[in-house]
């Protein structure tokens, strides 16, 4: 570390001393040809010739080396060309005035020349800055994610300032990710953390971290969130240099903020586009399924029902069995299609319950009536408590949910067994309990039950189905502000499904509705 410091120190010294040495050398080199032609040149013009190296030094290295060059040139002129030769003495007062005049002219011109140089330098640098900033903003225009943006900023800082910026990126758990290995003073880290969490100075701050100089910290935020904090080492230098650098950094960060806003708008547009696509897809799927699948199905089922009404067919048991088979299979197919439609409705986010006051009796009777065919082989016992309040639900969705549960109960319990439904009130809700005497479910199956398309491995071969039923039922119940749970004592012990739904606090006054 010390060796490195020494090395750096000597390089800085060399950088400061070399222009001075070179300017003296330049004067010396210029003296040689002058000496060669000295016999042909008037002595009084020699100092004017020396203006050439002085101007060169002034435009090249600035005012101070030019001063040194002026003095060296005056000395050289005196030494080599003014009598007495090879001495610094000047006898003729006229010559002394000449030399003095040369020194003044030389110094004034050097000053002007060096200022011109500074101005040119400044112009060139600001042109370079503008170009870099322009490139940067073009690069930003092609950023589509926050990660792109960060990479672009890093690259630009490395290019423009020689060292990259430090990022404190906010993670999804709203802690900040520590910056990469580069050294960052602890006080800068602390300030960045404070800015990220929204405490302390919000948008920008400048810190003086003694050894490494000034740090500019700025929160990178869009309209709705802080994405992180960017910390830039402005470094050490004169107040003016710091001000220039700070304003350059600020310009870059302003561009960044604009891009972030654009990204946010972009993100919003993207999500809107995805939503629209989802909706179009859902509508298309709905339309196609409804038309392409339901129409032939309706024709088959309708035709079967017409055949079923013809006396000649009804009287022949063999033909009648065939007609019944057609009816049953189409009904089952219809059920699958209905499930698929429900599932698309759910996944595409198109489920908006239409809440209305409904009698729970109507819902369960409707569910049992609609599933008549699937429940045909079982005894269905529905018990309603006497004083049931009205439910505030989408009756269509809840009827479908109850139908799914009843159908599942029938599927997974032996023919001829009883499926009992018990509907009773609790404060501000109604509980529907559907229990069967079927195969029951294991603990492991209970955990997986809420997933889409889950089917118990034990029944995949023996019981037909898509596995969508319980999933659809649970989504429909939840959409109506209810809950659904499954209880089973285990394999072969039957299953009970409990649906809890929001209800009126009590039945509305019976008198009020009548007279």
């Amino acid at each position, binding site marked *: 570390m010390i060796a490195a410091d020494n090395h750096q120190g000597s390089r800085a010294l060399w950088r400061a001393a070399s222009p001075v040495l070179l300017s003296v050398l330049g004067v010396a080199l210029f003296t040689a040809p002058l000496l060669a032609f000295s016999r042909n040149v008037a002595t009084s013009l020699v100092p004017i010739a020396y203006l050439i190296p002085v101007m060169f030094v002034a435009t090249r290295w600035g005012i101070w080396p030019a001063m040194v060059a002026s003095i060296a040139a005056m000395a050289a002129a005196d030494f080599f060309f003014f009598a007495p030769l090879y001495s610094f003495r000047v006898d003729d007062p006229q010559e002394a005035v000449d030399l003095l005049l040369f020194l003044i002219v030389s110094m004034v011109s050097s000053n002007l020349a060096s200022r011109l140089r500074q101005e040119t330098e400044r112009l060139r640098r600001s042109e370079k800055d503008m170009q870099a900033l322009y490139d940067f903003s073009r690069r930003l225009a092609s950023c589509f994610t926050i990660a792109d943006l960060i990479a672009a900023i890093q690259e630009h800082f490395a290019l423009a300032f020689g060292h990259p910026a430090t990022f404190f990126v906010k993670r999804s758990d709203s802690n900040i990710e520590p910056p990469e290995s580069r050294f960052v003073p602890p006080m800068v880290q602390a300030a960045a953390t404070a800015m990220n969490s929204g405490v302390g100075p919000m948008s920008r701050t400048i810190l003086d971290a003694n050894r490494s100089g000034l740090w500019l910290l700025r929160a990178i935020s869009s309209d709705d969130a802080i994405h992180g904090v960017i910390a830039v080492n402005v470094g050490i230098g004169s107040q003016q240099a710091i001000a220039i650098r700070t304003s350059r950094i600020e310009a870059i960060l302003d561009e960044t903020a604009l891009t972030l806003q654009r990204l946010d708008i972009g993100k919003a547009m993207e999500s809107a586009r995805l939503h629209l696509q989802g909706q179009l897809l859902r509508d298309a799927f709905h339309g196609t399924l409804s038309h392409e699948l*339901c129409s032939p199905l309706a024709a088959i089922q309708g*035709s079967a029902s017409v055949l079923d009404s*013809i006396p000649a067919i009804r009287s022949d048991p063999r033909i009648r069995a065939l007609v019944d088979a057609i009816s049953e299979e189409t009904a089952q197919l219809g059920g699958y299609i209905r499930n698929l439609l429900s599932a698309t409705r759910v996944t595409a986010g198109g489920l908006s319950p239409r809440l209305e006051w409904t*009698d729970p009796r109507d819902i369960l009777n409707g569910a049992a009536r609609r599933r*008549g065919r699937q429940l045909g082989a079982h005894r269905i016992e529905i018990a309603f408590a006497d004083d049931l309040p009205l439910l505030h639900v989408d*009756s269509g969705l809840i009827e479908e949910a109850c139908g799914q549960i009843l159908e599942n109960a029938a599927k997974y319990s032996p023919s001829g067994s009883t499926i009992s439904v018990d509907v009773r009130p609790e404060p501000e809700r109604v509980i529907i309990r559907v229990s069967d005497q079927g195969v029951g479910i294991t603990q492991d199956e209970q955990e997986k039950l809420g997933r889409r398309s889950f089917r118990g491995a034990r029944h995949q071969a023996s019981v037909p189905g898509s596995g969508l039923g319980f999933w659809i039922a649970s989504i429909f119940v939840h959409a109506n502000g209810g809950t659904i749970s499954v209880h089973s004592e285990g394999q072969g012990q039957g299953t009970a499904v409990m649906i809890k739904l929001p209800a009126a606090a009590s039945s509305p006054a019976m008198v*009020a*509705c009548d007279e």
Partner: protein
Amino acid sequence: MSKPANVVLLIDDEPKIRRFLRAGFELNGFDVLEAENATEALKIATFSPPDLIVLDLALPDLHGAEVLERIRAWSNIPIIILSVAAGEDDKVRLLQAGADDYVVKPFGMAELLARSEASLRRYFKSTTETPVVVAGPLSVDLVTRTVSLNHSRLHLTRKEYRLLHVLAMHVGLVVTHDQLLKEIWSGNQRDNIQYLRILVRKLRQKIETDPNQPRLLITESGVGYRLQNRFDSVPVADRVS
């Protein structure tokens, strides 16, 4: 059969659907006309008016609802809508636009015939002499305003009778919540469906054998109520007892 057959106009773009509908209606004594698009349908309905129209909503040239409105503009002829998995809102809108009833595809012929007969009965009711509506064990005399169940007189409150009266006028057909609320309360309670639910519950306790499993006063989920007058299909829960 000495009386002339009723004529039904089938409007559906699917030939397969028309084929079985034609068979089903002809087997039940109807004469059948067919149209595969709205233009043709409107032409037939205008120049040779049928007694009944069965209208599919998905037509190639015009939406079924539009056809319904155009026919209703000049005719009170019974119209039954065929629809594919329509939402409750759509059903209510079509009924309010003047459809007599609807069946959702896929459906059985028996269901469609029941609706057809009910709507034809409503249509010709003004010309028939009997003011008594019979639904199973229930009979409602619309003129004397008396109701009897298994031949014994029932006592209903005024609103209970009003409800039953409206349903009996449309026996076999669905009546929307809105229509019932308007007919029964007319005043400031028109939006209160809770009152309607409770009134239905009370009426069921008087007319149904088991009010928990009604067979006469049927709920059409999300749409309205129907007074049932045919009992071919036995409700599932009935098999228990």
